[in-house]
Protein backbone atom coordinates (compact mmCIF):
# COMPACT_ATOMS: atom_id res chain seq x y z
CA UNK A 1 0.00 0.00 0.00
CA UNK A 2 2.85 2.36 0.88
CA UNK A 3 6.11 2.08 -1.04
CA UNK A 4 9.04 4.24 0.01
CA UNK A 5 12.04 4.09 -2.31
CA UNK A 6 15.36 5.83 -1.69
CA UNK A 7 13.71 8.57 0.38
CA UNK A 8 16.05 11.32 1.51
CA UNK A 9 15.28 14.27 3.79
CA UNK A 10 17.71 17.10 4.47
CA UNK A 11 17.59 20.22 6.62
CA UNK A 12 19.94 22.68 4.99
CA UNK A 13 23.07 20.61 4.45
CA UNK A 14 22.27 18.10 7.16
CA UNK A 15 20.97 14.73 5.99
CA UNK A 16 18.31 13.51 8.40
CA UNK A 17 17.17 10.58 6.27
CA UNK A 18 19.68 8.94 3.92
CA UNK A 19 18.00 7.04 1.16
CA UNK A 20 15.72 4.62 2.97
CA UNK A 21 13.52 2.03 1.29
CA UNK A 22 10.64 0.22 2.96
CA UNK A 23 7.03 -0.68 2.41
CA UNK A 24 3.80 -1.28 4.29
CA UNK A 25 1.27 -3.80 2.99
CA UNK A 26 -2.47 -3.37 3.07
CA UNK A 27 -3.94 -4.16 6.47
CA UNK A 28 -0.57 -4.42 8.14
CA UNK A 29 0.75 -2.63 11.21
CA UNK A 30 4.42 -1.82 10.78
CA UNK A 31 6.65 -0.28 13.43
CA UNK A 32 9.55 2.04 12.71
CA UNK A 33 11.71 2.17 15.80
CA UNK A 34 14.93 3.93 16.62
CA UNK A 35 16.57 6.37 19.00
CA UNK A 36 15.88 10.06 19.24
CA UNK A 37 17.24 11.83 16.14
CA UNK A 38 17.38 8.69 14.02
CA UNK A 39 15.16 10.35 11.39
CA UNK A 40 11.85 8.64 12.16
CA UNK A 41 9.75 11.78 12.39
CA UNK A 42 11.39 13.29 9.31
CA UNK A 43 10.50 10.13 7.40
CA UNK A 44 6.87 10.36 8.44
CA UNK A 45 6.67 14.07 7.71
CA UNK A 46 8.09 13.53 4.24
CA UNK A 47 5.53 10.78 3.55
CA UNK A 48 2.68 13.02 4.76
CA UNK A 49 4.13 15.89 2.64
CA UNK A 50 4.57 18.20 5.62
CA UNK A 51 8.23 18.26 4.55
CA UNK A 52 9.64 18.19 1.04
CA UNK A 53 11.80 15.15 0.39
CA UNK A 54 15.29 15.84 -0.89
CA UNK A 55 15.11 12.78 -3.09
CA UNK A 56 13.47 9.43 -3.62
CA UNK A 57 9.89 8.39 -4.28
CA UNK A 58 6.83 7.65 -2.21
CA UNK A 59 3.96 5.70 -3.75
CA UNK A 60 0.64 5.35 -1.96
CA UNK A 61 -1.95 2.92 -3.38
CA UNK A 62 0.12 2.83 -6.55
CA UNK A 63 0.12 6.59 -6.99
CA UNK A 64 3.25 8.70 -6.74
CA UNK A 65 2.60 11.27 -3.98
CA UNK A 66 5.98 12.97 -3.78
CA UNK A 67 4.66 16.25 -5.25
CA UNK A 68 1.09 16.26 -3.91
CA UNK A 69 0.31 19.33 -1.74
CA UNK A 70 -0.06 18.44 1.96
CA UNK A 71 -3.75 19.38 2.16
CA UNK A 72 -4.60 16.88 -0.56
CA UNK A 73 -3.18 13.90 1.36
CA UNK A 74 -6.18 13.25 3.58
CA UNK A 75 -8.47 12.96 0.55
CA UNK A 76 -6.08 10.37 -0.84
CA UNK A 77 -6.58 8.37 2.34
CA UNK A 78 -3.40 9.07 4.29
CA UNK A 79 -3.73 10.57 7.77
CA UNK A 80 -0.87 11.61 10.05
CA UNK A 81 -1.20 11.87 13.81
CA UNK A 82 1.64 14.31 14.38
CA UNK A 83 4.30 14.19 17.05
CA UNK A 84 3.20 16.23 20.07
CA UNK A 85 -0.43 15.54 19.08
CA UNK A 86 -1.10 18.95 17.47
CA UNK A 87 -4.66 19.38 18.69
CA UNK A 88 -6.20 22.81 18.09
CA UNK A 89 -6.07 24.14 21.65
CA UNK A 90 -8.80 26.76 21.37
CA UNK A 91 -11.25 24.59 19.46
CA UNK A 92 -13.56 22.33 21.43
CA UNK A 93 -13.13 18.56 21.39
CA UNK A 94 -16.12 18.26 19.06
CA UNK A 95 -14.72 20.93 16.74
CA UNK A 96 -11.33 19.21 16.64
CA UNK A 97 -13.07 16.02 15.57
CA UNK A 98 -15.10 17.95 13.00
CA UNK A 99 -11.83 19.32 11.61
CA UNK A 100 -10.75 15.73 11.10
CA UNK A 101 -13.71 15.29 8.75
CA UNK A 102 -13.06 18.64 7.06
CA UNK A 103 -12.82 17.25 3.53
CA UNK A 104 -15.84 14.97 3.88
CA UNK A 105 -19.42 15.84 3.01
CA UNK A 106 -21.23 12.59 3.87
CA UNK A 107 -22.88 13.94 6.99
CA UNK A 108 -24.72 10.80 8.09
CA UNK A 109 -21.60 8.63 7.88
CA UNK A 110 -19.59 11.33 9.67
CA UNK A 111 -21.99 11.06 12.60
CA UNK A 112 -21.63 7.26 12.67
CA UNK A 113 -17.85 7.68 12.70
CA UNK A 114 -18.10 10.20 15.50
CA UNK A 115 -20.08 7.71 17.59
CA UNK A 116 -17.55 4.99 16.82
CA UNK A 117 -14.70 7.25 17.99
CA UNK A 118 -16.58 8.20 21.14
CA UNK A 119 -16.96 4.44 21.60
CA UNK A 120 -13.18 4.00 21.47
CA UNK A 121 -12.62 6.98 23.75
CA UNK A 122 -15.63 7.60 26.04
CA UNK A 123 -13.55 10.29 27.75
CA UNK A 124 -13.76 12.43 24.63
CA UNK A 125 -17.53 12.21 24.63
CA UNK A 126 -17.57 13.43 28.25
CA UNK A 127 -15.41 16.39 27.30
CA UNK A 128 -17.07 17.13 23.96
CA UNK A 129 -17.64 20.82 24.72
CA UNK A 130 -14.33 21.47 26.45
CA UNK A 131 -11.47 23.31 24.73
CA UNK A 132 -8.86 20.83 23.59
CA UNK A 133 -6.08 22.86 25.22
CA UNK A 134 -7.53 22.08 28.64
CA UNK A 135 -7.30 18.30 28.17
CA UNK A 136 -4.54 16.18 29.71
CA UNK A 137 -1.76 14.92 27.48
CA UNK A 138 -3.33 11.48 27.20
CA UNK A 139 -6.74 12.89 26.35
CA UNK A 140 -5.12 15.07 23.71
CA UNK A 141 -3.50 11.98 22.21
CA UNK A 142 -6.90 10.28 22.12
CA UNK A 143 -8.29 13.35 20.41
CA UNK A 144 -5.47 13.44 17.86
CA UNK A 145 -6.05 9.78 16.96
CA UNK A 146 -9.81 10.22 16.88
CA UNK A 147 -9.46 13.29 14.70
CA UNK A 148 -7.28 11.41 12.21
CA UNK A 149 -9.84 8.57 12.09
CA UNK A 150 -12.59 11.10 11.33
CA UNK A 151 -10.99 11.56 7.91
CA UNK A 152 -11.78 7.88 7.13
CA UNK A 153 -8.19 7.24 6.06
CA UNK A 154 -7.00 4.08 4.35
CA UNK A 155 -3.76 4.35 6.28
CA UNK A 156 -2.77 5.89 9.59
CA UNK A 157 0.67 7.29 10.32
CA UNK A 158 1.29 7.54 14.07
CA UNK A 159 4.19 9.62 15.36
CA UNK A 160 5.17 8.65 18.93
CA UNK A 161 1.69 8.16 20.37
CA UNK A 162 3.17 7.18 23.75
CA UNK A 163 5.33 10.27 24.13
CA UNK A 164 5.11 11.91 27.55
CA UNK A 165 2.21 9.77 28.75
CA UNK A 166 1.76 7.81 31.97
CA UNK A 167 2.01 4.00 31.55
CA UNK A 168 -1.71 3.46 32.18
CA UNK A 169 -2.58 5.97 29.50
CA UNK A 170 -0.07 4.42 27.10
CA UNK A 171 -1.81 1.06 27.54
CA UNK A 172 -5.20 2.62 26.92
CA UNK A 173 -3.98 4.37 23.74
CA UNK A 174 -2.32 1.21 22.40
CA UNK A 175 -5.45 -0.82 23.11
CA UNK A 176 -7.31 1.48 20.76
CA UNK A 177 -4.51 1.47 18.17
CA UNK A 178 -4.64 -2.34 18.14
CA UNK A 179 -8.44 -2.26 17.94
CA UNK A 180 -8.29 0.11 14.98
CA UNK A 181 -5.67 -2.07 13.29
CA UNK A 182 -7.88 -5.10 13.90
CA UNK A 183 -10.59 -3.47 11.76
CA UNK A 184 -8.18 -3.80 8.82
CA UNK A 185 -6.63 -0.33 9.01
CA UNK A 186 -3.08 -0.11 7.66
CA UNK A 187 -0.82 1.51 10.25
CA UNK A 188 2.74 2.82 10.22
CA UNK A 189 3.79 3.41 13.81
CA UNK A 190 6.82 5.32 14.99
CA UNK A 191 7.90 4.75 18.55
CA UNK A 192 10.76 5.19 20.95
CA UNK A 193 9.04 2.64 23.15
CA UNK A 194 10.39 -0.20 21.01
CA UNK A 195 9.01 -3.05 23.06
CA UNK A 196 5.45 -1.77 22.90
CA UNK A 197 5.75 -0.98 19.20
CA UNK A 198 7.12 -4.41 18.32
CA UNK A 199 4.58 -6.17 20.49
CA UNK A 200 1.75 -4.39 18.66
CA UNK A 201 2.98 -4.73 15.09
CA UNK A 202 3.54 -7.52 12.56
CA UNK A 203 6.76 -6.21 11.05
CA UNK A 204 9.37 -3.72 12.11
CA UNK A 205 12.18 -1.57 10.78
CA UNK A 206 15.01 -0.28 12.91
CA UNK A 207 16.33 3.16 12.01
CA UNK A 208 19.76 4.50 12.99
CA UNK A 209 21.25 7.87 11.95
CA UNK A 210 18.94 8.21 8.99
CA UNK A 211 19.27 4.68 7.68
CA UNK A 212 17.34 1.46 8.07
CA UNK A 213 19.73 -0.99 9.65
CA UNK A 214 17.51 -3.92 10.48
CA UNK A 215 14.18 -5.31 9.40
CA UNK A 216 12.07 -8.36 10.02
CA UNK A 217 9.00 -9.76 11.70
CA UNK A 218 8.36 -7.88 14.94
CA UNK A 219 8.51 -11.09 16.97
CA UNK A 220 11.98 -11.93 15.67
CA UNK A 221 13.18 -8.34 16.19
CA UNK A 222 12.06 -8.62 19.81
CA UNK A 223 14.40 -11.63 20.14
CA UNK A 224 17.27 -10.07 18.21
CA UNK A 225 20.23 -9.56 20.59
CA UNK A 226 21.22 -6.26 18.91
CA UNK A 227 17.70 -4.86 19.27
CA UNK A 228 17.49 -6.12 22.83
CA UNK A 229 20.76 -4.43 23.72
CA UNK A 230 20.13 -1.13 21.95
CA UNK A 231 16.38 -0.55 22.31
CA UNK A 232 14.95 -2.84 24.94
CA UNK A 233 17.49 -1.96 27.63
CA UNK A 234 18.74 -5.49 28.21
Amino acid sequence: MLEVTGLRVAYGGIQAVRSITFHVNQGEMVALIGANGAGKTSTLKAIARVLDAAGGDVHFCGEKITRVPPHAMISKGLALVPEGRGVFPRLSVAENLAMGAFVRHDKAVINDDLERIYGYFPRLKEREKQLAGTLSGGEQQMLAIGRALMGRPKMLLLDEPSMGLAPLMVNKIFEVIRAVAATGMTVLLIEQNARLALQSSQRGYVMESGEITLTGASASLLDDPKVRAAYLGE
Partner: protein
Amino acid sequence: MDIFLQQIINGLVQGSIYALVALGYTMVYGIMGLINFAHGEVVMIGTLVTISVAGFLIKAGMPVMFAGLAGLTVSVLVCMALGWGLERVAYRPLRNAPRLTPLITAIGMSIVLQNVAMIIWGRNYLTFPALLPSVAFEFAGAHFTAVQVIIVLVSALTMLALLFLIYRTRLGMAMRATSQNPAVASLMGVNINRVIAAAFIIGSALGALAGVMVGTYYEIAHYQMGFMLGLKAFTAAVLGGIGNLAGAMLGGILLGLIEALGAGYIGDLTGGFLGSHYQDIFAFLVLIVVLMFKPSGLFGEKTGDRA
Protein backbone atom coordinates in the same frame (compact mmCIF):
# COMPACT_ATOMS: atom_id res chain seq x y z
CA MET B 1 -23.38 66.10 31.73
CA ASP B 2 -24.54 67.11 28.24
CA ILE B 3 -21.01 67.05 26.95
CA PHE B 4 -20.41 63.66 28.55
CA LEU B 5 -23.34 62.03 26.75
CA GLN B 6 -22.45 63.86 23.55
CA GLN B 7 -18.92 62.56 23.66
CA ILE B 8 -20.12 59.03 24.41
CA ILE B 9 -22.21 59.16 21.23
CA ASN B 10 -19.34 60.58 19.19
CA GLY B 11 -17.02 57.98 20.66
CA LEU B 12 -19.35 55.12 19.81
CA VAL B 13 -19.54 56.25 16.20
CA GLN B 14 -15.81 56.72 15.83
CA GLY B 15 -15.23 53.50 17.78
CA SER B 16 -17.46 51.47 15.46
CA ILE B 17 -15.32 52.59 12.55
CA TYR B 18 -12.10 51.78 14.40
CA ALA B 19 -13.50 48.37 15.26
CA LEU B 20 -14.27 47.50 11.64
CA VAL B 21 -10.77 48.50 10.56
CA ALA B 22 -9.16 46.80 13.56
CA LEU B 23 -10.84 43.53 12.56
CA GLY B 24 -8.90 43.61 9.31
CA TYR B 25 -5.61 43.88 11.21
CA THR B 26 -6.51 41.26 13.74
CA MET B 27 -7.79 38.64 11.26
CA VAL B 28 -4.60 38.74 9.23
CA TYR B 29 -2.44 38.79 12.35
CA GLY B 30 -4.36 35.93 13.91
CA ILE B 31 -3.81 33.69 10.91
CA MET B 32 -0.30 34.54 9.77
CA GLY B 33 1.28 36.70 12.47
CA LEU B 34 1.68 39.61 10.07
CA ILE B 35 0.76 43.22 10.83
CA ASN B 36 -0.55 44.37 7.48
CA PHE B 37 0.38 48.05 7.69
CA ALA B 38 -1.12 48.59 4.25
CA HIS B 39 -4.60 47.95 5.64
CA GLY B 40 -5.20 51.64 6.39
CA GLU B 41 -4.53 52.36 2.72
CA VAL B 42 -7.10 49.75 1.71
CA VAL B 43 -9.63 51.73 3.74
CA MET B 44 -8.52 54.94 2.02
CA ILE B 45 -8.93 53.33 -1.43
CA GLY B 46 -12.39 52.24 -0.32
CA THR B 47 -13.35 55.84 0.45
CA LEU B 48 -11.87 57.27 -2.75
CA VAL B 49 -13.42 54.65 -5.02
CA THR B 50 -16.81 55.41 -3.49
CA ILE B 51 -16.31 59.12 -4.17
CA SER B 52 -15.52 58.44 -7.81
CA VAL B 53 -18.27 55.90 -8.42
CA ALA B 54 -21.03 57.59 -6.44
CA GLY B 55 -19.99 61.02 -7.72
CA PHE B 56 -20.12 59.81 -11.31
CA LEU B 57 -23.49 58.13 -10.90
CA ILE B 58 -25.00 61.15 -9.16
CA LYS B 59 -23.81 63.36 -12.00
CA ALA B 60 -25.33 60.86 -14.42
CA GLY B 61 -28.64 61.49 -12.70
CA MET B 62 -29.00 58.44 -10.49
CA PRO B 63 -30.86 58.93 -7.20
CA VAL B 64 -28.36 59.65 -4.42
CA MET B 65 -29.22 56.61 -2.30
CA PHE B 66 -28.74 54.18 -5.19
CA ALA B 67 -25.56 55.90 -6.27
CA GLY B 68 -24.31 55.50 -2.70
CA LEU B 69 -25.15 51.80 -2.61
CA ALA B 70 -23.52 51.28 -5.99
CA GLY B 71 -20.45 53.15 -4.77
CA LEU B 72 -20.32 51.02 -1.64
CA THR B 73 -20.65 47.80 -3.64
CA VAL B 74 -17.95 48.73 -6.12
CA SER B 75 -15.62 49.88 -3.37
CA VAL B 76 -16.09 46.67 -1.37
CA LEU B 77 -15.34 44.63 -4.50
CA VAL B 78 -12.32 46.75 -5.41
CA CYS B 79 -10.92 46.46 -1.89
CA MET B 80 -11.49 42.70 -1.76
CA ALA B 81 -9.54 42.39 -4.99
CA LEU B 82 -6.88 44.72 -3.60
CA GLY B 83 -6.55 42.72 -0.38
CA TRP B 84 -6.29 39.49 -2.33
CA GLY B 85 -3.74 41.04 -4.67
CA LEU B 86 -1.63 42.40 -1.81
CA GLU B 87 -1.39 38.97 -0.24
CA ARG B 88 -0.68 37.26 -3.54
CA VAL B 89 1.93 39.72 -4.78
CA ALA B 90 3.58 41.12 -1.67
CA TYR B 91 3.19 38.65 1.20
CA ARG B 92 2.87 35.13 -0.19
CA PRO B 93 6.39 35.08 -1.66
CA LEU B 94 7.65 35.98 1.83
CA ARG B 95 5.70 33.30 3.68
CA ASN B 96 8.86 31.63 4.97
CA ALA B 97 11.00 34.75 5.29
CA PRO B 98 12.06 36.15 8.69
CA ARG B 99 9.21 38.05 10.33
CA LEU B 100 10.74 41.47 9.83
CA THR B 101 10.72 41.09 6.03
CA PRO B 102 6.94 40.99 5.48
CA LEU B 103 6.54 43.78 8.04
CA ILE B 104 8.82 46.08 6.06
CA THR B 105 7.07 44.98 2.87
CA ALA B 106 3.76 45.98 4.45
CA ILE B 107 5.08 49.46 5.15
CA GLY B 108 6.36 49.57 1.58
CA MET B 109 2.97 48.55 0.19
CA SER B 110 1.36 51.25 2.30
CA ILE B 111 3.62 53.87 0.67
CA VAL B 112 3.01 52.43 -2.80
CA LEU B 113 -0.77 52.52 -2.35
CA GLN B 114 -0.68 56.11 -1.06
CA ASN B 115 1.28 57.22 -4.09
CA VAL B 116 -0.92 55.33 -6.52
CA ALA B 117 -3.94 56.99 -4.91
CA MET B 118 -2.24 60.38 -5.17
CA ILE B 119 -1.66 59.81 -8.88
CA ILE B 120 -5.26 58.75 -9.49
CA TRP B 121 -7.14 61.15 -7.21
CA GLY B 122 -4.66 64.01 -6.81
CA ARG B 123 -3.20 65.74 -3.76
CA ASN B 124 -6.24 67.77 -2.80
CA TYR B 125 -8.96 67.05 -0.31
CA LEU B 126 -11.99 65.56 -2.02
CA THR B 127 -15.56 66.12 -0.95
CA PHE B 128 -17.48 62.97 -0.17
CA PRO B 129 -21.00 63.21 -1.63
CA ALA B 130 -23.77 63.46 0.97
CA LEU B 131 -25.30 60.01 0.51
CA LEU B 132 -27.70 60.11 3.42
CA PRO B 133 -30.21 62.82 4.29
CA SER B 134 -28.96 64.97 7.17
CA VAL B 135 -31.55 64.33 9.84
CA ALA B 136 -30.68 65.24 13.41
CA PHE B 137 -32.11 63.97 16.67
CA GLU B 138 -31.85 65.18 20.21
CA PHE B 139 -31.73 63.00 23.29
CA ALA B 140 -31.20 64.27 26.84
CA GLY B 141 -29.38 67.32 25.55
CA ALA B 142 -27.10 65.42 23.21
CA HIS B 143 -27.35 65.69 19.43
CA PHE B 144 -26.86 62.94 16.94
CA THR B 145 -27.59 62.40 13.27
CA ALA B 146 -29.07 59.66 11.15
CA VAL B 147 -25.61 59.08 9.71
CA GLN B 148 -24.23 58.33 13.17
CA VAL B 149 -27.06 55.94 13.98
CA ILE B 150 -26.60 54.11 10.68
CA ILE B 151 -22.84 53.84 11.18
CA VAL B 152 -23.26 52.23 14.61
CA LEU B 153 -26.04 49.89 13.46
CA VAL B 154 -24.33 48.78 10.27
CA SER B 155 -21.06 48.07 12.04
CA ALA B 156 -22.84 46.14 14.77
CA LEU B 157 -24.66 44.01 12.18
CA THR B 158 -21.49 43.49 10.17
CA MET B 159 -19.61 42.36 13.26
CA LEU B 160 -22.39 39.92 14.14
CA ALA B 161 -22.23 38.53 10.62
CA LEU B 162 -18.47 38.16 10.94
CA LEU B 163 -18.81 36.31 14.25
CA PHE B 164 -21.32 33.99 12.61
CA LEU B 165 -18.93 33.36 9.74
CA ILE B 166 -16.00 32.62 12.04
CA TYR B 167 -17.81 30.54 14.67
CA ARG B 168 -20.59 28.83 12.73
CA THR B 169 -19.29 28.02 9.25
CA ARG B 170 -16.87 25.54 7.76
CA LEU B 171 -14.63 28.33 6.45
CA GLY B 172 -14.63 29.96 9.88
CA MET B 173 -13.63 26.73 11.59
CA ALA B 174 -10.84 26.28 9.06
CA MET B 175 -9.68 29.83 9.76
CA ARG B 176 -9.64 29.28 13.51
CA ALA B 177 -7.82 25.97 13.13
CA THR B 178 -5.27 27.54 10.79
CA SER B 179 -4.59 30.38 13.20
CA GLN B 180 -3.87 27.84 15.96
CA ASN B 181 -1.76 25.39 14.00
CA PRO B 182 -1.37 25.87 10.25
CA ALA B 183 0.67 22.71 9.69
CA VAL B 184 -1.91 20.46 11.34
CA ALA B 185 -4.79 22.31 9.66
CA SER B 186 -3.28 21.40 6.31
CA LEU B 187 -3.08 17.75 7.42
CA MET B 188 -6.86 17.96 7.89
CA GLY B 189 -7.19 19.01 4.26
CA VAL B 190 -7.34 22.78 4.74
CA ASN B 191 -5.71 24.68 1.90
CA ILE B 192 -3.75 27.25 3.93
CA ASN B 193 -3.30 29.58 0.97
CA ARG B 194 -7.05 29.84 0.53
CA VAL B 195 -7.63 30.52 4.21
CA ILE B 196 -5.02 33.28 4.25
CA ALA B 197 -6.49 34.79 1.08
CA ALA B 198 -9.95 34.66 2.69
CA ALA B 199 -8.65 36.54 5.75
CA PHE B 200 -7.28 39.30 3.52
CA ILE B 201 -10.42 39.46 1.39
CA ILE B 202 -12.84 39.58 4.32
CA GLY B 203 -10.68 42.08 6.22
CA SER B 204 -10.50 44.31 3.15
CA ALA B 205 -14.26 44.18 2.64
CA LEU B 206 -14.72 45.36 6.24
CA GLY B 207 -12.11 48.03 5.55
CA ALA B 208 -13.98 49.26 2.48
CA LEU B 209 -17.19 49.48 4.50
CA ALA B 210 -15.33 51.45 7.18
CA GLY B 211 -13.92 53.69 4.44
CA VAL B 212 -17.40 54.52 3.20
CA MET B 213 -18.47 55.26 6.78
CA VAL B 214 -15.52 57.58 7.34
CA GLY B 215 -16.36 59.40 4.12
CA THR B 216 -20.04 59.70 4.99
CA TYR B 217 -19.22 60.88 8.50
CA TYR B 218 -16.52 63.47 7.77
CA GLU B 219 -17.65 64.27 4.18
CA ILE B 220 -14.04 64.67 3.16
CA ALA B 221 -11.26 62.36 1.96
CA HIS B 222 -7.60 62.47 1.05
CA TYR B 223 -4.96 60.03 -0.18
CA GLN B 224 -3.16 60.15 3.20
CA MET B 225 -6.26 59.59 5.33
CA GLY B 226 -5.53 55.87 5.70
CA PHE B 227 -2.32 56.41 7.61
CA MET B 228 -3.65 57.84 10.87
CA LEU B 229 -6.85 55.79 10.70
CA GLY B 230 -4.79 52.65 10.18
CA LEU B 231 -2.49 53.42 13.12
CA LYS B 232 -5.42 54.03 15.40
CA ALA B 233 -7.23 50.89 14.33
CA PHE B 234 -4.00 48.98 14.87
CA THR B 235 -3.86 50.51 18.37
CA ALA B 236 -7.43 49.35 18.92
CA ALA B 237 -6.49 45.83 17.84
CA VAL B 238 -3.52 45.80 20.21
CA LEU B 239 -5.67 47.18 23.02
CA GLY B 240 -8.16 44.33 22.60
CA GLY B 241 -5.45 41.71 22.14
CA ILE B 242 -4.26 41.39 18.55
CA GLY B 243 -5.44 38.21 16.89
CA ASN B 244 -8.67 38.19 18.89
CA LEU B 245 -11.89 39.18 17.09
CA ALA B 246 -13.91 40.21 20.12
CA GLY B 247 -10.84 42.08 21.30
CA ALA B 248 -10.67 44.12 18.09
CA MET B 249 -14.34 45.02 18.40
CA LEU B 250 -14.10 46.01 22.04
CA GLY B 251 -10.75 47.70 21.52
CA GLY B 252 -12.18 49.80 18.69
CA ILE B 253 -15.18 50.95 20.68
CA LEU B 254 -13.05 51.65 23.76
CA LEU B 255 -10.50 53.62 21.79
CA GLY B 256 -13.27 55.68 20.18
CA LEU B 257 -14.72 56.44 23.62
CA ILE B 258 -11.33 57.27 25.14
CA GLU B 259 -10.54 59.63 22.29
CA ALA B 260 -13.91 61.33 22.35
CA LEU B 261 -13.95 61.78 26.11
CA GLY B 262 -10.32 62.86 26.05
CA ALA B 263 -11.03 65.43 23.35
CA GLY B 264 -14.09 66.63 25.23
CA TYR B 265 -12.33 67.21 28.51
CA ILE B 266 -8.71 67.92 27.59
CA GLY B 267 -9.40 71.66 27.53
CA ASP B 268 -10.84 71.63 31.05
CA LEU B 269 -8.15 69.29 32.34
CA THR B 270 -5.26 71.43 31.12
CA GLY B 271 -6.92 74.74 31.91
CA GLY B 272 -7.33 75.51 28.21
CA PHE B 273 -3.65 74.92 27.44
CA LEU B 274 -4.42 71.99 25.08
CA GLY B 275 -7.46 71.99 22.81
CA SER B 276 -9.55 69.16 21.36
CA HIS B 277 -7.31 69.02 18.27
CA TYR B 278 -4.89 67.15 20.53
CA GLN B 279 -7.27 64.19 20.58
CA ASP B 280 -4.81 62.06 18.61
CA ILE B 281 -2.46 61.82 21.58
CA PHE B 282 -4.94 59.62 23.46
CA ALA B 283 -4.77 56.78 20.99
CA PHE B 284 -1.02 56.62 21.24
CA LEU B 285 -1.00 57.07 25.00
CA VAL B 286 -3.26 54.04 25.10
CA LEU B 287 -0.91 52.13 22.81
CA ILE B 288 2.10 52.94 25.02
CA VAL B 289 0.30 52.06 28.24
CA VAL B 290 -1.00 48.75 26.84
CA LEU B 291 2.41 47.78 25.50
CA MET B 292 4.02 48.62 28.84
CA PHE B 293 1.58 46.94 31.20
CA LYS B 294 -0.41 44.36 29.24
CA PRO B 295 1.19 43.70 25.86
CA SER B 296 -1.20 40.82 25.21
CA GLY B 297 -4.14 43.25 25.35
CA LEU B 298 -7.49 42.89 27.10
CA PHE B 299 -8.38 39.52 25.54
CA GLY B 300 -4.85 38.38 24.89
CA GLU B 301 -4.52 34.64 24.36
CA LYS B 302 -2.96 33.10 27.40
CA THR B 303 -4.71 29.80 28.05
CA GLY B 304 -4.97 26.40 26.57
CA ASP B 305 -1.65 25.72 24.91
CA ARG B 306 -0.65 22.87 27.19
CA ALA B 307 1.25 20.28 25.17
